[in-house]
């Protein structure tokens, strides 16, 4: 065979190559039914089934009446805690990347301490010891109601978690961006505002949305402090009526609905946020 080696290698190459059309065809002919979001249908069906039970079954009527009033408090606690946590995370997160030695080290210490203690014990300490002590030291003992103390505790905890998200987001922006801004004569603050933050926001928003949902779920921990949110009301109702299945089933239905609803809202927000960003990744 003339030119043996090169022909051989060409043939071998062609042989390997010939696998490609197969994989391609298989990918292209992937039947549409395979790509359906069945998980969403399942979740939807579960919520629907639970909803029918909770709303139609007469045994659930009392459970509904006792537990549903807590929904508003759960939502309110979530929003307030997330808002405050966002504020704390901005201060602590930026403190961490600041060049100021005091700000940097205080921020770091705050985050490490909060992350080093489980959420529930920390809620106890913050809501029942530290915040009352602070209000007493400020000359106004017992001035902060329990509900607010509990929400503040949750906000302080998530503030530390979310500060890490802010720090990570800002640090994910390549150094060249700050340098380009500074080289143009922009101050460090102006570069942060116009160049770094808008880009960091994209890295920050998805994990922030996660923590928003986590806060919603963790408001259930406030039940331990007697805050009359959903979990507390379900426990009270079940304890007094012994209708455990009704109470806890209603409770889980409410949480699942709230969490799924919030996820949908947040993913709509994320999509809106990304829509303005044509042409870049």
């Amino acid at each position, binding site marked *: 065979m003339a030119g043996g080696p090169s022909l051989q290698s060409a043939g071998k190459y062609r042989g390997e190559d010939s696998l490609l059309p197969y994989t391609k065809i298989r990918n292209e002919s992937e039947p549409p039914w395979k790509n359906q979001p069945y998980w969403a249908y399942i979740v939807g069906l579960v919520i629907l089934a639970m909803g029918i039970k909770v709303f139609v079954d007469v045994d659930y009527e009392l459970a509904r009446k006792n537990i549903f009033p807590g929904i508003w408090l759960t939502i309110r606690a979530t929003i307030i805690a997330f808002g405050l946590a966002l504020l704390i995370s901005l201060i602590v997160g930026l403190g961490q990347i600041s060049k100021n030695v005091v700000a940097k080290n205080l921020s770091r210490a705050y985050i490490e301490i909060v992350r080093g203690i489980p959420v529930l014990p920390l809620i106890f300490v913050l809501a029942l010891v530290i915040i009352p002590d602070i209000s007493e030291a400020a000359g106004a003992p017992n001035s902060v109601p329990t509900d607010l103390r509990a929400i503040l505790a949750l906000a302080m905890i998530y503030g530390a978690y979310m500060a890490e998200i802010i720090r990570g987001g800002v640090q994910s922006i390549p150094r060249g961006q700050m340098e*380009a801004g500074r*080289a*143009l*004569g922009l101050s460090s603050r102006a570069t942060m505002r116009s160049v770094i933050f808008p880009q960091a926001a994209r890295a920050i928003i998805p994990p922030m949305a996660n923590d928003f949902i986590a806060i919603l779920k963790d408001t259930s921990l406030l039940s331990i402090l007697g805050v009359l949110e959903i979990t507390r009301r379900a426990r009270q109702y079940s304890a007094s009526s012994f209708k455990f299945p009704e109470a806890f089933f209603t409770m889980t239905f409410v949480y699942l609905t709230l969490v799924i609803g919030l996820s949908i809202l947040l993913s709509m927000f994320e999509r809106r946020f990304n829509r303005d*960003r*044509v042409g*870049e990744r």
Partner: protein
Amino acid sequence: MSPMIELRNVRKTFNKTIHAVAGVDLEVAEGEVVVIVGPSGSGKSTVLRCINLLEVPTSGDVIVDGRSLMDASTDLDEARAEMGMVFQGFNLFPHLTVLDNITLAQKKVRGRDTAEAERVAHEQLARVGIPEKADSYPRQLSGGQQQRVAIARSLAMNPKIMLFDEPTSALDPEMIKEVLDVIVELAATGMTMVVVTHEMGFARAAADRVVFIDEGLIVETGPPEDVFTNPQSDRTKAFFDKILAY
């Protein structure tokens, strides 16, 4: 006449042990085009970055347009606005359109209104040959186009000095020319320029003076032809033997 840029015994040490710049004296006259060459890791980029204090020298003085930038009372932002800088990696702002990339600092630093800033931006985009890309995002442009936008962004500030840090090193070969054309044209307008590059053809065409740096020190300096064809030091000779071989 006092020089436009003056580095006086500038040293830059990283981590207390790595002497990136080991005592450099350099004067650049107004309108002069200086090309800095040297092996990688020789400290040439660090020298350039010391000029606008992106790298703060460990010791020594940097005097630009008569003002010491090492003097804490000098407004660094104001001084930097007079020095455009073009980076190897372009460093365009990816979240902004080309137009917004070019108007941002004009508005925030120069205090121009939007109409004026946009007029200047379009003018500079035309100058670098891509007037039609104003509404594109950096990602939609080729490397060469991005680098030309970066040049336009710097020029829109009407700087007195332009600094180029390996402006073509990250480009595909066919895009190098379009960027160098812009820089050569700019050199011909009498702009004071310092260019770190490996493009010896460009140095020949545009440089008034070539500075060869090795191990953080200026080894040799002179007109491009002299330095390239008749290097005085062995180190310079060894370097050019290698890179001018092909």
